């Protein structure tokens, strides 16, 4: 497939849009359908598409295996860490109202952070799974 110009150019054009769409789904998750899980899959899809067309080595130059495996726990850490901030500032665990001056604004910010954590973990897990399967045959 490497020699297939149409695919290569097409994919290069699509990938930025996929990433932006991922971000859109991510941010839209506060009010409508969407959120970190779906966004994470879309972002991972972008990388996986890249890997399918340009080969696994190319993809791993963009998203190295080590980085991906690092991001898996990092996302969870962001999630749980956000919860811990509530604990540290004297509120209950996962109570985000302390993140900003107004409680509703704080909760909004908390959900944003939590969703970001979910995005990171889901995306990196998907990619890691893909890597694991694709390297199995060798």
């Amino acid at each position, binding site marked *: 497939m490497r020699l297939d110009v149409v695919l290569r150019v097409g994919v290069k054009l699509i990938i930025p849009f996929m990433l932006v769409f991922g971000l859109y789904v991510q941010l839209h998750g506060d009010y409508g359908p969407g959120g970190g899980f779906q966004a994470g899959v879309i972002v991972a899809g972008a990388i996986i598409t890249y890997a399918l067309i340009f080969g696994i080595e190319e993809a791993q130059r963009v998203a190295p295996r080590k980085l991906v495996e*690092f991001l*898996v*726990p990092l996302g*969870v*850490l962001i999630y*749980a*860490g956000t*919860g*811990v901030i*509530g*604990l540290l500032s*004297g*509120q*209950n*665990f*996962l*109570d*985000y*109202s302390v993140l900003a001056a107004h409680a509703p604004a704080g909760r909004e910010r908390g959900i944003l952070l939590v969703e970001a954590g979910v995005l990171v973990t889901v995306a990196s897990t998907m990619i890691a799974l893909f890597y694991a399967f694709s390297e199995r045959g060798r």
Partner: protein
Amino acid sequence: MNAVTAQLPALQVVIPLLGAIIAAFLRRGTLAWAWAALITALTPVIAFAQLHQVWTNDTISYRMGGWPPPIGIEYRVDLLNAFVLLLVSLVSTIMMPYARRSVAHEIDGDKQAWFYCMYLLGLAGLLGITITGDAFNAFVFLEISSLSTYVMIAMGRDRRALVASYQYLIIGTIGATLYVIGVGLLYLVTGSLNFADIGTRLAEASAAYPRPVLAGLAFLFVGISLKLALFPLHVWLPNAYAYAPSFATAFLAATATKVAIYLLLRIVFSVYGVAIDLNTLPVSTVLYPLSIAAMFIASILAVYETNLKRMLAYSSVAQIGYITLGIALMNQAGLTGSVVHLFNHALIKGALFLALGAIVYRAGTIKLDDLGGIGRTMPLTFAAFVFAGMSLMGVPGTAGFISKYYLIVGALDAGLWPIAFLIVASSLIALVYIGRAVEVAYFRPIASAPANAKDPPLMMLVPILVLTFASIYFGIDTELSAGVASRVAETLLGGLK
């Protein structure tokens, strides 16, 4: 200080959870072990503080994210789960010093940190199931602990570990699915996910929709029964225990099934028992035959088993039979026996599996036929095995005796003397399989595998001895185990008229 005390329920779960994530960043095995040991050691402190609080004051209720129940998730600590929390966290802490060498011996260097990450995740999951007052949250934690368990089992050296893990994964997933269907049914009829809240709404719901309420119980019961390895849904357990890394086996045997039993107690007594007369529910009807079948069939299986880990795994299935038998009796003494056996069995099996792990570490095999004379080359380890084994049989003066005593009294109170007789009879089968191991270990000529074996290093030996001592000690001082258990039984039966 007060602020910390108020946050204890959250910390109980958050500390191991965060600890697990951080362990994943640590690359070196020893470092990850030290971290996991530190994190584990914090959990019984919290559990003890909570038990103390519950014992002296009252139930603790914690609002996750500040949302009041039943809308938000509630962490609710009463005597029963405070007791289980302490048990799980304490046994894990005692076992941690053992982990370093055993894990280093059985798992490749680069995977050790990953193993500890999974272990902490599993611990967090088990503690989470125990502490949460929310049915769906319990499902989430059930999945967290199960997933990490699958990984831990798959990390065993034996190739069959993968198959065992896969089979457990399928069965575990079926179990979790049934559980979540049950929760869904309850949510449909009561509109709540909070255990206590469902309990209060169930009377009304049961009058309006009797069938879904019963169906919900059926799904929850069977789902949890898969997790706690109730006969005949136990088949995943022997292989999972046999091929998992030694430390993981000991950890799972001591904690995982106990937490599942806790969940069953919670559903049956704190949810259904509050609203519905338990004698009209088919719980006892189903549990009696299965428990007794487990006590006998699994014990006899253990007699014929030549792999010591599988032998003890079958023994676990049989012992779970005793616990569920106590639940089936549904009276004060029987339930006390159940709860106290949950505690004692965790100690006993912890000690036994750790001893087996030490044998793997030194002699490299757990095939009974290859272990001739091991009792003489590993005197302390095997002495611990014998003492814990005596406790398993229920020799008077050991912890196991206390459990069986209460169960027998419970059976007699229920007017079921044949069951009391069966309890004694099945205990004798334990004598046979432990006796078989003793015969090989002490009276056979020393075989080649144990010839160069000796007692394991102190770090491994001390946890074995501590747990063995505990499984004897709690036969003499029954204040903590039986004392708490009988109060727990009282509260659980509070709903029963």
